[in-house]
């Protein structure tokens, strides 16, 4: 053994094995890394380039705020209805999911005995991995009829009799619509937020908890005063990432939102999101301007996702540095 080693050291390694091998290896690693960089840039560039016809025809802001999506007569296109759809469904889902997701995380990380928290954590991870289309098929055959018959129609009838002013806001109770899509999105992002929040809680040093306990704090007070403030950066960043998930969620939304391209959207009535309109119309658009408009919608979706992701990264970094000192 040692004999072998000695031999190796004595024989001066060939260039290919030594410095040249290092060069080759480093260069190939850099090439691979640069291709990853290039891919992300290519996404931005190709979406802009493929959508440029629409963006130049209607203007950057004109396309963004254009409310018309008319592939028949005027050939005018604007992304506004889809932006409204994306923003309202994903913010709605975020609002609905926030407290339950945090609650599960608190329970898992702070209250549950080890075996139970292990089970819950695995389940949450598993559910986070359930594909969008699988949630979609359940939504189409189970959830949509159920919510239509047990929530939407009774509420609609009630409002007809008691609050007629409300009916235009509620819209037609058909099951396929904004509310259904929002609730499905909520179900889909809860596990995601929970997982990230649990991670944030686990980062809290034991001393932080012990210090609070030593001051006589109850369990909840420890969580509220020591754990949550310490991990709020992680929670916030996790929430932003969940928002990004909701914004980009495509298939389940396309299957359940009802696909209506004109504003105004109503609570029960159909709507559309940026991702859903792309997946619905991309293969089928006949006119060039229609196709480039869809690419342009993709470009704006890229920008929105970019902002959300960068915000998450910023929050994470900011709180990671000052986190130790934050109360």
């Amino acid at each position, binding site marked *: 053994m040692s004999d072998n080693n000695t031999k190796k050291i004595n024989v001066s390694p060939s260039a290919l*094995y030594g410095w040249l091998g290092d060069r080759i290896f480093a260069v190939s690693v850099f090439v691979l890394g640069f291709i990853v960089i290039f891919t992300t840039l290519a996404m931005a560039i190709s979406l802009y380039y493929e959508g440029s016809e629409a963006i130049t025809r209607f203007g950057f802001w004109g396309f963004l705020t254009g409310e018309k999506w008319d592939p028949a007569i005027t050939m005018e296109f604007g992304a506004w209805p889809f932006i409204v759809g994306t923003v309202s469904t994903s913010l709605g889902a975020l609002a609905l999911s926030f407290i339950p997701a945090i609650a599960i995380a608190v329970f898992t990380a702070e*209250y549950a005995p080890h075996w139970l928290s292990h089970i*819950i954590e695995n389940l949450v*991870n598993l559910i986070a991995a359930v594909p969008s*289309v699988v*949630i979609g098929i359940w939504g189409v055959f189970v959830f949509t009829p159920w919510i239509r018959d047990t929530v939407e129609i009774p509420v609609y009838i009630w409002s007809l009799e008691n609050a007629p002013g409300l009916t235009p806001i509620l819209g037609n109770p058909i099951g396929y619509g904004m509310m259904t899509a929002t609730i499905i999105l909520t179900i889909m992002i809860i596990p995601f937020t929970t997982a990230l929040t649990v991670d944030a809680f686990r980062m809290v040093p034991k001393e932080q908890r012990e210090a609070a306990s030593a001051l006589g704090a109850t369990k909840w007070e420890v969580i509220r005063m020591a754990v949550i403030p310490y991990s709020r950066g992680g929670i916030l960043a996790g929430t932003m990432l969940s928002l990004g998930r909701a914004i980009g969620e495509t298939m389940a939304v396309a299957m359940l939102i009802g696909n209506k391209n004109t504003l105004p959207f109503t609570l029960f009535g159909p709507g559309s999101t940026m991702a859903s309109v792309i997946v619905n119309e991309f293969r089928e658009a006949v006119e060039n301007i229609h196709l480039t408009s869809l690419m342009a919608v993709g470009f704006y979706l890229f920008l929105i996702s970019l902002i959300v992701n960068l915000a998450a990264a910023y929050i994470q970094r900011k709180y990671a540095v000052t986190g130790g000192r934050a109360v």
Partner: protein
Amino acid sequence: MRSLRSRYARDNVVLVFIILNTVAVLIPLFIILGYVIVQGFNYISLDLFTKELGSPTRNMMGEPTGLVHTIIGTAVVDIMAVLISIPFGIGAGVMLSEYPDHWANPILRVLNDTLNGMPAVLKGLLAFVLVVKPMGSFSGLSGGVALAFVMFPIIARATESALMNIPWSIREAGLAIGLPRWRVILSTIIPAAKVGLVTGFLIAFARAAGEAAPLVFTSFGNNYLPVKWTGWIFGPVDTLPQRLYNLAISPYEHWHGMGWAAAIILLAVITASFAAARFFIRDKKQE
């Protein structure tokens, strides 16, 4: 200062609230899983694994129909995605962890995370622009590329953190006995980090295997097995997530049944890769 009793009472109220919340959220999640499992098993049959889909009129005409081409197609497209994404993911991860001083690393890290956060539907559009358009046809390969875009940012991140976990002293030890750097990385660092690598990899796979949005514009769909083996790569290929979408929105009752069956197969694949990932992580903890 409130009384101790009221503070403890509030503690209990909060606990009850949290438990109720947890139960209330976990129940619908269980319902979804339960529904898919029960419905899926109802519609699993031998034909599903041995026959092609063909026309929706097959059932009416009493001919057998199944998803064999979809199941094989999923395997082919997923394997292509894996083969494409491994070198890029690991390459980028190695660059981040082993060459920490490289000037491009901050850019790489930000852009890799950006790509990871991008909606999958945009990755489909990118694969459409980069592969489908120049090649002139929808193809299994373009589907593999689209899924690789989903996978490699995750692999890169996992690789980076797995390699970072290996103490720097091991690298120094390797270099000190005269090994060149590439040899240290390939034969010491990567094997030492293999559990982390494999885990990251399985998680990436589980994410990509369920994606339908990128496949709609790329691998396109097919009701039959391709007639030549090259058809799997250069021709349109059926995949479970995309077929599931088509089955679910169709009006045909027996297609709905096959949709549920497709859902449970998909779920089984993903659960298996997740379980494998968990298994690896546990192994590592025990070591």
